[in-house]
C-alpha cells in the first residue's frame, strides 16, 4: 500500500481538534503542522509549550490526559539544532498527537512539564542527560542514565558512537 503524501500546510490542517484548540488560544504559538502516515505533528513555539500542553490536557472535546513520551532529536549541523518531541495520548478518544519544539544549539532551554504531569520528571532528565537541553522548573535536573561526573552529551550527533573512553 503506497504511502499517502504528507499534508504540511497549516491551512488544510486547522480543523484537527488539537490544532484548532491551539490556534483559537494563540495563533502565534503554532508554527506549523504536519499530518503524515496517520499521525498529527504540531510545531509549537518555544515559550508556549507548557500552556499548550495544559490546554490540550483540559480540552473538553478531546482531552489529551496522558503524556506518553518526551524525547529529542539532534539535527546537527543544521539550525535550529534540537527538536524536543512530546507525545500526548487521549485515552478516552484513543487519539495521539505529537508536539514538537525547535531549539537553537547554544544553551537550549525549555519549560518543564512536571507541574502538569509529574511523570515528565524522568523523561526530561533523560533528555538533559543525553542531549543537554535544560528544563527550567524541574525539581531535580541531574543526569539519570550516565554517571554523575560524565562530561558531554552522548546522543548528540557530534559525539562519536564508540565514545571517548
Amino acid at each position: 500500500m503506497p504511502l499517502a503524501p504528507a499534508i504540511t500546510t497549516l491551512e488544510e490542517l486547522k480543523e484537527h481538534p488539537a490544532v484548532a484548540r491551539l490556534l483559537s488560544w494563540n495563533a502565534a504559538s503554532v508554527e506549523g503542522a504536519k499530518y503524515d502516515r496517520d499521525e498529527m505533528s504540531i510545531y509549537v513555539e518555544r515559550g508556549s509549550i507548557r500552556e499548550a500542553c495544559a490546554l490540550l490536557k483540559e480540552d473538553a472535546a478531546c482531552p489529551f490526559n496522558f503524556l506518553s513520551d518526551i524525547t529529542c532529536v539532534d539535527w546537527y549541523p543544521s539550525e535550529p539544532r534540537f527538536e524536543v518531541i512530546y507525545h500526548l495520548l487521549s485515552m478516552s478518544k484513543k487519539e495521539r498527537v505529537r508536539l514538537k519544539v525547535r531549539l537553537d544549539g547554544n544553551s537550549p532551554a525549555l519549560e518543564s512539564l512536571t507541574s502538569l504531569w509529574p511523570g515528565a520528571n524522568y523523561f526530561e532528565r533523560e533528555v538533559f542527560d543525553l542531549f543537554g537541553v535544560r528544563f527550567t522548573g524541574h525539581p531535580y535536573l541531574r543526569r539519570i542514565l550516565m554517571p554523575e561526573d560524565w562530561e558531554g552529551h552522548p546522543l548528540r550527533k557530534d559525539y562519536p558512537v564508540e565514545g571517548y573512553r
Partner: protein
Amino acid sequence: MILNMGPQHPSTHGVLRVLLEIDGETVVRLMPDIGFLHTGIEKTCEAKFYQQVVPLTDRIDYLCPLTNNLCYVLAVEKLLGLEIPPKAQWLRVLLNELTRINSHLVWLGTHALDIGAMTVFLYCFREREEILRLFEMVSGQRMMTSYFRVGGIALEPPLGFFDRVRDFAGYFPEKVDEYENLLTGNPIWGMRTKGVARITAEDALALGATGPTLRGSGVDFDLRRDMPYSSYDKFQFKVPVSQEGDVFARYMCRVQELRESIGIVRQALDGMPEGPIKADAPGIVLPDREKMKTQMESLIYHFKIITEGFSVPAGEVYQAVESPRGEMGYYIVSDGTAKPYRVHMRSACFANLQTLATMCEGRLLADVVAAIGSIDIVLGEIDR
C-alpha cells in the same frame, strides 16, 4: 538513616539502586538510581541498517524479546507503508502472546520468591521451559529470538510447531490454577500484598504508568483492544482491571492476563490463515533461499539488501504496543537513507518506576520489595 538498596540485590530484579531514607522500619523518602545497565542502544541504532537493528531490540526488554521486535518492525513498516500478509500478522500475535505468558511467568516466579513463596518460582520456570523450547523450535534461539523482520517473519515455523503449541495451550490453564491455589487464597500472601503499596488512578496517570500498574488502579486501557495493531482487532479477549491499586490488585491483573493470553493463543491456532509469511516488497524483504539460489534478480536483491540496506522515505513515526509491562513505543525518525536517523524507545518500566516513590513512602521497608516486584521492572528496558 540513609540506606542503600544497592545495585547488587536479589530483590531489585536487575541492577537497580534505591536510596532509602528510613526512620526505624518506615520509609520516609525513596529515590531510585538507574543507569547501571545503560549500553547506548539508541545511539548504536543510528549506526546500523534498519534490518540490523532487530537483534538490538531483543535485548532492550529481555524478558519479552518478541514484543520489542514487533514494536520496532511495526514502526518501520509504518514508515514504509508496507502491508503485511494475514498469516504473518496472526503468527506475530501468537508469538507475542506466548511472550506475554513467558514474561508474566518470570514476574510471578520472582515476585513470589521475593515475598517468600519459593515453590511458585520453580513451578513458573517449569512452564517457561516449554515456551523457551517453542521459541527455539521456531527461531533457533531460546530468548533473543529476533524472529520478526521488516515485512513479515524470518522463516516458516517448522512442522509440528503448531501441534506443540496446541499441547501447551491444553495443559497451561491448569497450571495457572495451581499458581492461584498456592497464592490467591493464601492468608500470608494476602497480608503481604493486600493494602500494600497502594496508588490511585490519578497518581498513576499523572506519573505516566501504563499496563498492569495502571489497570490495577482501575483505569481500563489496553493498547491491544483500544488502538489495535497487527490484527489484534480480530481476537476476542477480556482486559482484566482491578480497583484497589495495591500489590494484590496488580497480581490479580497479571494472573488473569495469563489466562486471557492462552485464550488468544488458542484462537490464533484455530483461525491461522494460509498464505505467505513475508510481504511482497522485493527491495525490502529478503527473498526465499531457493529463489535466491536459482534466480538472478533474487540474488541481486539479496546482495543489495544485506550490503546496502533498504532506504526508507523521510519522516517520523511513533508506534506503541502493549508489552507485558505497559506501553512500549518506538519513535523512529528517518532521513531517507538506509540507517535510521534517530530511534527512541519509550520503555514502559521507565515511566512505571516513577510510581515507586508514591507507593512506598510512609510504608515499611519490607513493602518496598513487594512494590518493586509488583511494578515488574526490567532494567534493560529502563536503562537501554
